[in-house]
């Protein structure tokens, strides 16, 4: 029997980590992810896990310690947010290119400056090209479920890449929700014993060196191989989701389609805003409007073909970005979604809304405005503006 609990997002994440009982957690506290290492250090202190907890002096060191421990053959986790993630930047690339299956909850928060501790996606979007797999979570339940699946995805022999599990700071991390936990034995059975293989720094049978100099004759081949692992990840993510569904009844894919079968207008969005948007979709559906929603769960690898198939019959689409990429032409999710549709035979209109930066509230009436804009486009055939800001004072 699953365990019913009331937990905040951070507690849910820390609980998943407790049940996984990784070998090493190296972490530094930063709002709003502070509670994750805080709860976890309590689990270490009271003996409910036998993890080696490394209290470091910065996030750069946290990720460096994770890289070292993972290279040594340990199952390794950490957690961070915003500027903490930015401080890990250099080492994020090293973790990914060294093919180390580290799992890290990222509690999304705006990047400074100006200093802001509230939620948007500028942190994880900034790390999108670092070679980490990125999973996004709408609520506490998904955050918990994603962490457990992330271990298997990261460690799969065809993947061997680190995974970020993203969830919205405060909105999810500090909100208490009802959640269904797996029994610890079931989590342990699902994630299994970690087998790092022979190529570890602490294997006396086969000494190896890691992190070599890799000049023009070889670097490109390594990047190509890394790209292949990212391609493989899509299939692996789906396989593991199937196993997870068999265990829990909870279904996960590369993205969630909400009332998309006959949708004429749709929003594409990540994380908790999807919950708000579903309310609006329901409201519109009651009025007979064919509205739908796509919530992207897997942003890296980006599900190009699958998204194209899910969206090609829609007449007008709004991609909502909780981060600006300052290209002066649209946010990161917009650019990639629109590119995915380039190969569709019938090309829907795709517009972009930058929204919710620095924790600006996004209410159902904001989302309603987006659907109304889409409906107007469908009706008039006219696109007034492709690149828009939602909820900023004009």
């Amino acid at each position, binding site marked *: 029997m699953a365990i019913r609990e009331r937990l905040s997002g951070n507690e849910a994440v820390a609980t998943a980590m407790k049940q996984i009982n990784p070998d090493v957690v190296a972490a530094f506290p930063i709002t709003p992810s502070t509670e994750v290492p805080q709860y976890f250090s309590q689990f270490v202190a009271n003996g409910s896990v036998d993890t080696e907890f490394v209290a470091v002096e910065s996030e750069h060191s946290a990720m460096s310690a994770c890289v070292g421990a993972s290279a040594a053959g340990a199952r390794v986790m950490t957690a961070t947010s915003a500027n903490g993630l930015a401080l890990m930047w250099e080492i994020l690339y090293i973790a990914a*290119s*060294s*093919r*180390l299956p580290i799992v890290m909850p990222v509690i999304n928060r705006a990047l400074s400056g100006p200093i802001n501790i509230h939620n948007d996606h500028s942190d994880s979007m900034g790390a999108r090209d670092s070679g980490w797999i990125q999973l996004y979570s709408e609520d506490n339940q998904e955050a918990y479920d994603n962490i457990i699946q992330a271990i298997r995805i990261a460690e799969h*022999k065809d993947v*061997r890449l680190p995974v970020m599990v993203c969830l919205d700071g405060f909105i999810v991390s500090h909100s208490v929700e009802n959640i269904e936990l797996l029994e610890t034995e079931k989590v342990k059975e699902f994630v299994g014993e970690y*087998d790092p*293989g*022979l*190529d570890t720094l602490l294997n006396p049978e*086969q*000494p*190896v*060196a*890691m*992190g*070599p100099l*890799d000049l023009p*004759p*070889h670097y*490109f*081949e*390594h990047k*190509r*191989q890394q790209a*292949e692992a990212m391609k493989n990840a899509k299939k692996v993510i789906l396989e593991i989701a199937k196993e997870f569904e068999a265990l829990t009844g909870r279904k996960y894919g590369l993205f969630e389609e909400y009332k998309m079968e006959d949708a004429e207008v749709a929003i594409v969005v990540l994380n908790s805003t999807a919950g708000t948007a579903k309310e609006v979709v329901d409201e519109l559906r009651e009025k007979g409007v064919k509205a739908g929603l796509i919530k992207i769960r897997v942003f890296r690898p980006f599900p190009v073909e699958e998204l194209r198939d899910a969206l090609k019959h829609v007449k007008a689409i709004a991609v909502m970005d909780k981060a600006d990429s300052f290209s002066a032409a649209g946010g990161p999710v917009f650019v990639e979604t629109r590119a995915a549709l380039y190969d569709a035979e019938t090309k829907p209109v795709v517009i972009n809304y930058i929204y919710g930066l620095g924790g600006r509230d996004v209410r159902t009436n904001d989302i309603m405005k987006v659907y109304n804009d889409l409906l107007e486009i469908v009706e008039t055939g006219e696109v007034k503006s492709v690149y828009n800001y939602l909820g900023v004072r004009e």
Partner: protein
Amino acid sequence: MKDNKKVTITTETTWKEITPGGIIYEAGNAHNYKTGEWRSMRPIWNSEKCKQCLLCFPVCPDSSILLEDGKVVGIDYDHCKGCGVCVEACPFKVFDFVKED
């Protein structure tokens, strides 16, 4: 990465064969890396002029002055990067220092 075979990575190694993350299985493999490919100047050792004082040998940063039985016998051009330190160090002007073709 359980099934990795120990491979010597060369410029022929494809992305499918290369070791994940560039793992190195072989100790001391810097020897296989031909730093001599960078060379633009070549020191030429003239055996008949050499007094075997061995002042050139310890200054070479690439251990490229080849010795046999305590005597200089030539230069390891696979690793000599052409820095010219040996040329400067030789009190008997034994080396010619010429442009690489």
